């Protein structure tokens, strides 16, 4: 066992227990692995953001004058692939989930710490493959890899991109598998299912989706790669193959994938809303069942991405109906967060601002999803900016807001330092304003008929003003995202040391020091209280930070 470097008087934490690059790259501590992921996903967030910036720059003018059409196809493809597979899917589970789940259930680590490290290495290998794909000239299939474009007609780096997604998919599968076993088998005495924080329930549901869905997209892209390499004709129309078969297999995962992206965010919001309303969650059972319901029903709706692709109208009717059903558990959650806040003592620290942003923007995103589930509307707005706005409201207005809220909420626990609250609030407001300025015009653009994935709209110059607003918004949004990067890093050196429980919040993670020691607990906790026992916690949330 490596010697622990502990200076006299300084408490041993997971950060100072060992130093050196080897102690990080060979760690099996779930908290260190969470930080390794944090570095990776932050890097890819900026890579994906860079591509978004170029897309929005091109769209400032109606003519395609910044880049070639083929290059534009590569820009939105790389934006999508990097953001979905290397940022949104792993971000909350692999950073906050990894860090917090063992602590929240009273365990020393995840069930399989070495597989946890393997997951990170698979993520990095996938990331390197994606980086290679970018440097080798990118790929232009759209993030969706549709056949026969991807199998027959493109000379670009489809196989390396497919391989990158395949490898990172296994990272996702192993993380999900680890979480499920951990939550089933490693809970401390007294931590029954009905006492679990909703953050844990949300990750449990997410993990079920990861385990069931990811392998199907894996086989779909393996078949694309085999078709390119060995001329197997499974999606080849010339052999009687059906391009829609690829879409069925692809969307069977990729629709539940959006629930992989949103459910962990919902878990975060539950934690934050309860803390900053000083109240138990309204309807704990309903909230827990709702995340499971979203996970299950989410697997039944995939062909709503294919309404105009050529599926039979009878299938379209079935999938449309099922898509309406999936909105119900999500709506229940929004109602219950609202009911939780009702007659609570609400304070507006940075995490709560992000949570409010999430609830409002997720509601808009979710409602517009229902519009899209309606066949008549979908025929009109599919493949337009309406769809783009819908999913960005959920993924950015929802997931990224929740992620930022969670990072601020748990930053003191993770780093042992307090971030500057004024800058936190300011960034949150800038993000909210920038976000709406970027994406609300896109609803209008889509409704007016602007297609997505088009690099030139010179036939409809009336679209320009809204595009300019959108690009302006994107710049504001970028500032809003850069600021926390700066002050989080600043706080690591200059921030005030954080107490164990800066928010007077409920939950096992707030009963251990900030930052935690390597094995989390000095003694195994025995849980005798219900979740969100804010009626027993007398103190208010400290106001001045």
């Amino acid at each position, binding site marked *: 066992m490596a010697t622990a470097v502990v200076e006299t008087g300084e408490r041993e934490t997971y950060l100072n227990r060992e130093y050196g690059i080897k102690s990080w790259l060979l760690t099996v501590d779930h908290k260190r692995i969470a930080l390794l992921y944090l570095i990776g996903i932050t890097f890819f967030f900026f890579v994906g953001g860079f591509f978004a910036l170029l897309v929005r720059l091109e769209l400032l003018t109606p003519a395609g004058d910044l880049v070639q059409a083929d290059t534009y196809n590569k820009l939105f493809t790389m934006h999508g692939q990097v953001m979905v597979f290397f940022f949104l899917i792993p971000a909350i589970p692999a950073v906050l989930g990894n860090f917090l789940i063992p602590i929240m259930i009273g365990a020393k680590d995840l069930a399989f710490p070495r597989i946890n490290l393997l997951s990170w290495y698979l993520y990095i290998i996938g990331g390197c493959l994606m980086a290679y794909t970018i440097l080798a000239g990118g790929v232009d299939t759209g993030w969706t890899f549709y056949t026969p474009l991807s199998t027959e007609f493109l000379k670009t780096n489809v196989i390396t991109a497919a391989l990158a997604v395949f490898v990172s998919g296994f990272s996702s599968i192993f993380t999900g598998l680890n979480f499920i076993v951990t939550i089933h088998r490693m809970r401390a005495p007294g931590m029954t299912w009905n006492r679990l924080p909703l953050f844990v329930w949300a990750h449990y549901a997410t993990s079920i989706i990861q385990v069931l869905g990811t392998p199907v997209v894996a086989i779909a892209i393996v078949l694309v790669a085999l078709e390119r390499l060995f001329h197997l004709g499974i999606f080849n129309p010339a052999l009687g193959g059906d391009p829609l078969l690829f879409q069925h297999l692809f969307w069977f995962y990729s629709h539940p994938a959006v629930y992989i992206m949103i459910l962990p965010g919902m878990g975060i919001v539950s934690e934050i809303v309860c803390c900053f309303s000083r109240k138990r969650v309204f309807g704990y059972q309903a909230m827990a069942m709702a995340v499971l319901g979203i996970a299950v029903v989410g*697997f039944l709706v*995939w062909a709503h991405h294919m309404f105009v692709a050529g599926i*039979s109208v009878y299938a379209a009717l079935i999938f449309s109906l099922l898509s309406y059903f999936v909105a119900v558990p999500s709506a229940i959650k929004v109602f219950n967060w609202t009911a939780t806040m009702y007659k609570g003592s609400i304070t507006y620290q940075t995490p709560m601002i992000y949570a409010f942003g999430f609830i409002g923007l997720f509601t808009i995103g979710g409602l517009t999803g229902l519009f899209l589930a309606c066949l008549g509307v979908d025929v009109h707005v599919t493949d337009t900016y309406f769809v783009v706005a819908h999913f960005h409201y959920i993924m950015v207005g929802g997931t990224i807001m929740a992620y930022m809220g969670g990072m601020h909420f748990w930053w003191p626990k993770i780093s042992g330092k307090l971030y500057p609250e004024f800058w936190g609030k300011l960034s949150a407001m800038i993000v909210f304003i920038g976000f709406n300025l970027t994406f609300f015009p896109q609803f209008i653009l889509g409704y007016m008929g602007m297609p997505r994935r088009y690099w030139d709209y010179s036939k409809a110059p009336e679209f320009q003003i809204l595009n300019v607003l959108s690009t302006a918004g994107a710049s504001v949004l970028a500032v809003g995202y850069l600021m926390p990067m700066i002050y989080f890093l600043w706080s690591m050196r200059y921030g005030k040391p954080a107490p164990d429980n800066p928010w007077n919040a409920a939950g096992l993670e707030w009963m251990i020091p900030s930052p935690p020691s390597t094995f989390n607990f000095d003694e195994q906790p025995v849980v005798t209280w219900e979740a969100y026992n804010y009626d027993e916690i007398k103190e208010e949330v400290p106001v001045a930070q």
Partner: protein
Amino acid sequence: MKEAMSDHNSSSEHVSSIGSSVAIWLALLVGTALTVGAAYVDLGPFNVVVALAIASIKATLVVLFFMHVKYTHEKLTKMVIATAIFFFLILLALSMADYGTRLWT
């Protein structure tokens, strides 16, 4: 030399007896022979039903006996298996909801 059905080792996991293992093995081989034989009989659309039914019986025998699911104290294992089968069937059923109805007017 016959051994009891439920040997116990120190961790009180079920230990398969040689007799029961061989019995299942024989059943699987018989099933294979039946499948091949049935393929040569004209049952019309039921050929594939019979083939899949025999395959499913064989698979069930492997899961319950060879993979020890019959003897496990863990209910979760059965839930996990049921979940996998359910979602696999969803993939097939809803995909066929499209392909099976494409030619309907």
